[in-house]
């Protein structure tokens, strides 16, 4: 269980997170949604000890993230963030293999190799295994990063906007794969998503954040309502039932009157 207690964060005089209390039980997919700057990525980074806690506490299965050794946490929890650095010239297989570092310390055992092969297979990367990372498209590289995070073999997987750069096929495929991971292996997945329909289709629970607070928290059925979404995003989002799913019609359509300016 990830237990977040009264976590606040101030950055450059701005309150980014405001007394967040949240507990995420083991298992299932939790989607974090909300407008840009709501604090989703910051919260994820705090939980993964990438940022120092200013106030409050976060524990992973009872282990406080602020004081648990990095190596111990790395076997419990893996995070994938968006990174702007240059891609290294290593092969896809080597890169996914780095995910085993917390276990192997660099010396890969047969078990580590098996896990890497499985990760390559799961994310359809076996054909690209020998390719150098700097010769991949952005989307392919993104899949490599997710496969590496999976190969880390941690109970908790935190993904910050993993659908960035992915085309429709691979975005869908990744969500299916994450669903399978959660169902078959009992991994706990927390994922920041911008597409609320992906969240509704795949997540067990949606947590919406706005202005550093939790604006809504519940099952997709509970969140996918016009009045709830309007409170989060600030415009009336039409929600329809289609194909057995609740779909938010978030798109701009020609000929539609412009949204009224709304006092927030």
């Amino acid at each position: 269980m990830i237990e977040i207690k009264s976590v606040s964060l101030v950055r450059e005089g701005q309150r980014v997170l405001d007394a967040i209390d949240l507990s995420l039980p083991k298992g299932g997919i939790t989607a974090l949604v909300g407008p840009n700057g709501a604090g989703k990525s910051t919260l994820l980074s705090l939980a993964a000890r990438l940022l120092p806690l200013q106030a409050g506490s976060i524990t992973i299965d009872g282990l406080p993230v602020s004081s648990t050794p990095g190596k111990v946490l790395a076997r419990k929890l893996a995070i994938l963030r968006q990174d702007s650095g240059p891609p290294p010239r290593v092969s896809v297989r080597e890169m996914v293999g780095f995910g085993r570092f917390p276990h192997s310390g660099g010396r890969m055992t047969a078990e580590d190799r098996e896990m890497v092969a499985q990760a390559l297979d799961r994310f359809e990367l076996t054909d690209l295994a020998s390719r150098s990372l700097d010769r991949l498209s952005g989307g392919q590289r993104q899949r490599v990063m997710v496969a590496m995070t999976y190969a880390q073999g941690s109970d908790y997987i935190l993904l910050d906007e993993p659908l960035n750069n992915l085309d429709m096929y691979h975005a869908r495929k990744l969500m299916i794969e994450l669903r399978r991971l959660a169902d078959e292996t009992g991994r706990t997945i927390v994922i920041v998503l911008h597409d609320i329909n992906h969240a509704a289709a795949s997540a067990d629970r949606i947590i919406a954040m706005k202005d550093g607070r939790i604006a809504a928290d519940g099952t997709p059925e509970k969140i996918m309502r016009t009045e709830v979404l309007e409170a989060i995003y600030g415009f009336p989002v039409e929600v329809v039932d289609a194909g057995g799913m609740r779909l938010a019609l978030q798109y701009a359509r020609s000929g539609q009157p412009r949204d009224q300016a709304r006092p927030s």
Partner: protein
Amino acid sequence: MPEITPTAHRRAIASAGLCLVLLVVLSLGIGVEDLSFSGADGAMPLADLLSISRLPRTLAAVLAGAGLAVAGQIMQTLTRNRFVEPSTAGTAQSAALGILIVTLFLPSADLGLKALVASGCALAGTAVFLATAHRLPPEQPYLVPLFGLVYGGVVGAAVTYVAWQNDLLQYLDIWMNGEFSGVLKGRYELLWIAVLVVAAAIFFADRLTIMALGEAQATSLGLDYRRMTQIGLVLVSVMSALSVVVVGLIPFVGLVVPNLVSRLSGDNLRGTLPQVALGGAILVTGCDILGRLIRFPYEIPVGTVMGVAGPGIFLWFILRERRDA
């Protein structure tokens, strides 16, 4: 680029090793004094000539080259930027400041003490550079080397000013322009520490490779990023300071060699670090040999030869790659 297998790494290491051995033999054979076994005509006996002058000089070139190339690789890993090296990031200039301070206040200090103070100053200077480099926007990778050049220039100017005020400019020239002609037995042995630097870097190779993925990813993989940064800083500073103290500044080795190796063999440091070390040794030994041959029997300092050869090789390689792509 096809996958770089361990066999390919071994092959590259073997051919680089062979190349280095040839250069070492060549370096031992070149000099004003002819090699003769008898010591006739008042010539120096062969064993003495080799053990007092030629061998120390050659070893100094090999050790400094290997160490500086590895230091450059570590620097590029710490900054996540391929365009920096100790001599363009204020490290070497800070080391020179250290030697200057010792020379001013403890003129009788031996080489060891000079190296120690120089390392300390290099450490402080590089830490300032790194702290600033991490604040620069990662979307603009050219800002890091640009800042390094400016920063190194400012530190270097301060060093020149102090040296000028104290009438020490000719010493400064010795520190800031690397050359091996003064290397004799008893005057270069500190450079053996380069072996430790290279060994430590190879020991940490996996961790350094993971560091290159960025702080977030490295931390997620359980790496103590801060600790590794400190270790890397110490290795870079000690190596640069040693080189400045013993033979003077040799530019471009740390920039050219890691980039060439990265293009040929990739970035998995476990496989490539030995190649970086060998490549550095080859480049510096080769440039020293050139410097001794171009105006024989006079010498051109290795720093000067490198200043021309380093960028030349680098440009040729970049342009060649562009044509292939």
